[in-house]
């Protein structure tokens, strides 16, 4: 496919867009066109809604779509993690059945990995899948499932063999969420939002054809999903982008985004809102306080250095350089920045830090920072797990001696099943 040079490709896209893109059509109609053309996911294989292009060429295509002001393939939620996993490990039947509706936005997905009893230790999961009468019967519980309440499908990890070591008895399934054995309950956080769900399975059913990969071979597939998640391939990070076009496509897109992004609206507060610090320092008058100024400076130094470090990592990746330490540090850095920011916001708020809602500063935004930041050092892998990862993968330090990986999972001490 690299016979195309970039200019030719750009012209091809433009021609196609000129013929097909118009803002006044149903969003799904447009995205179906886009998916079938292969332009929406140019780096995907040509046989699966893509063009098989390199990352660079793919970026050129996406640039053209953006320049034309056209709407791209659906990105929100965890759909892209599902897509990436299916592209890599799914059967052709899986790809044929699921990929298009992921791109058009018709079907939403959720990730059914974490459990109450297995958080940091994901492979310690105890949700069970048992083959009965030719169908997989699922029993157990998942948690921290974003958007489970409006997902049609879930990527499910369940234990299918208890007599082998923990990583070797897990299978990866595609679960249809809309069935009697699946109950989704919102899980409220300390900041009052309920961005996550608990999902309970009581004899929920998965058809045998919806096993992904081999039976008991689910762990390495899960690692694919997780690797894409770490790379930020989920659409979560893009939630802040406003889509301001005119026409039916955009109206429907805004509706979709409002819906999908709802659970994430406190995420910027969780990150500490460094962007508000100087404004708040001026508004509070404490910008002249030398003690506060030191705190602000420390925060800005951390925040800017973290950004620059992330940009170093991205640049190295783009240049094809081997990843240096800077690549694995982002999450821990973000956690440190957020904690420091919450501290500075507290000092800047003074006694008003005790107020919330409409009595609180910035209509409660500041108090939302204070009660959201504690999540950032936990969600998506605790600081402690990040430090393990950094010390092992970046610094090459040895793992701790493990007592849980070399024996049948049945015999590994674990949390009681009930919560």
């Amino acid at each position, binding site marked *: 496919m690299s016979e195309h040079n970039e200019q030719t490709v750009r012209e091809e896209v433009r021609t196609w867009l000129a013929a097909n893109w118009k803002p006044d059509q149903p969003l799904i109609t447009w995205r179906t066109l886009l998916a079938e053309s292969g332009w929406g996911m140019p780096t995907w294989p040509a046989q699966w809604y893509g063009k098989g292009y390199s990352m660079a060429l793919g970026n050129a295509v996406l640039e053209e779509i953006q320049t034309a002001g056209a709407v791209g393939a659906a990105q929100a939620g965890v759909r892209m993690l599902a897509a990436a996993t299916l592209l890599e490990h799914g059967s052709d039947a899986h790809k044929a059945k699921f990929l298009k509706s992921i791109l058009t936005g018709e079907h939403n997905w959720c990730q059914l990995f974490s459990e109450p009893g297995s958080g*940091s230790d994901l492979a310690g999961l105890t949700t069970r899948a048992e083959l009965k009468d030719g169908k997989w019967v699922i029993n157990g519980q998942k948690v*921290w499932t974003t958007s489970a309440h409006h997902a049609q499908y879930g990527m499910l990890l369940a234990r299918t063999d208890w007599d082998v070591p923990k990583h070797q008895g897990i299978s990866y399934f595609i679960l249809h969420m809309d069935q009697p054995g699946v109950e989704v309950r919102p899980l409220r956080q*300390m900041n009052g939002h309920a961005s996550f769900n608990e999902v309970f399975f009581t004899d929920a059913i998965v058809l045998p054809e919806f096993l992904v990969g081999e039976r008991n071979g689910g762990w390495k597939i899960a690692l694919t999903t997780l690797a894409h998640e770490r790379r930020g391939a989920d659409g979560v990070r893009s939630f802040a982008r406003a889509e301001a076009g005119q026409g039916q496509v955009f109206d429907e897109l805004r509706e979709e985004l409002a819906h999908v992004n709802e659970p994430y609206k406190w995420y910027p507060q969780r990150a500490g809102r460094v962007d508000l610090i100087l404004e708040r320092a001026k508004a509070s008058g404490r910008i002249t306080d030398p003690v506060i100024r030191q705190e602000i400076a420390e925060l800005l130094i951390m925040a800017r250095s973290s950004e620059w470090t992330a940009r170093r990592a991205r640049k190295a990746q783009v240049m094809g350089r081997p990843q240096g330490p800077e690549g694995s540090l982002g999450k821990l850095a973000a956690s440190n920045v957020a904690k420091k920011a919450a501290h500075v916001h507290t000092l800047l708020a003074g*006694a008003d830090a005790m107020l*919330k809602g409409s009595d609180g500063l910035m209509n409660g935004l500041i108090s939302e920072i204070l009660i959201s930041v504690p999540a950032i050092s936990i*969600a998506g892998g605790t600081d*402690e797990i990040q430090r393990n990862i950094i010390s092992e993968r970046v610094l090459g330090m040895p793992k701790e001696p493990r007592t849980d990986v070399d024996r049948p999972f049945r015999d590994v001490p674990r*949390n009681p099943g009930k919560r």
Partner: protein
Amino acid sequence: MEFSFSDEQQVFRDMVRRFLEETSPTKEVRRLMDTEIGYDPAVWQRLSNELGLPGLHIPERFGGQGFGAVELGIVAEEMGRALLCAPFFSSAVLGTFAALNAASEAQREELLPDLAAGKKRITLAVAERSGSWQAADITTAARSAPSGSVLNGEKWFVIDGASADQLIVAAVDEHGIGLYLVDAAADGLNRIPLDTLDPTRKQARVVFSNVSAQRLGGASDATAALDRTVDQATIVLASEMVGGADHLVRSAVDYAQMRMQFGRVVGSFQAIKHKCADLVLEVELAKSAAYYAAEALAEDDPDVPALASLAKAAASAACLRAATDCIQIHGGIGFTWENDTHLYFKRAKASEMMLGDPVYHRERMLKNVGGLA
């Protein structure tokens, strides 16, 4: 300084703790924090009648028990541990100390017996929009009127301000600062509940428009009485915070002992063990500071202002850290509404700022450092 509680004090602590374990489990805290007044009058009555806690530190001649700051600190520590929802800090601490410090003998005779018996709840209103508890920042004004005085101004962050029976209000008058007793039902008084980060302790904004008030004490500046009241309350608040911190350490350790990951209890990982070790160190140091300050208050030590600030700064840091670490050690569950840690976290965050933040108190401590140097 004693550096130790007597056997009697230990027995007293156990009694208070048992009472609070019974009357203030977190289920009850959760129920009360959603009510308007934020406490259970029946529990308040029991706490007053059975244990006499509101009058613990009120002299016996005014119907109190005549104990001192050390016993009061014990009570506050246990209340912090239990996250008790009650008007104790507002009325038994702020209001009562203000009355003790500023009121005339006749006024004391009028006010203190009811305070000691928990029959009347009197809070203290000092801070205004700027959020300062320093006398120099007060702008609410009192002027003499034919019958008593008249107040105009606005107070913020008034603890239990919307539910108290009476308020003692710090205002500027011709003598400097005066402390004025105002009836909650007085004309021109408007009490607006504030939406607070900490749902377990209610606050109000109180607006005074020509409100009739009675000045406490003689015709002289009450700044010293106000400062002393704030110091006393600061020490009690520090005690409350170390009680909360101590609970949080225990909660974190208990969870870490129970929670399994990777085939081990997470409390066997050094990352968790060392975090707990650092935490218990900080909490024990803060306890020592709170105990020392309470003893100093009981002995009327001249270093009380410095020690109050020292204890508050130490307790704020320790309690907030304990809450943050407790959430972290709980992992995801620690961030849920269902888990109790966030209630302590929010109390810690609010207490950190109440009566002055740690930066303020560190500076104030150093200004008054005296014998601490």
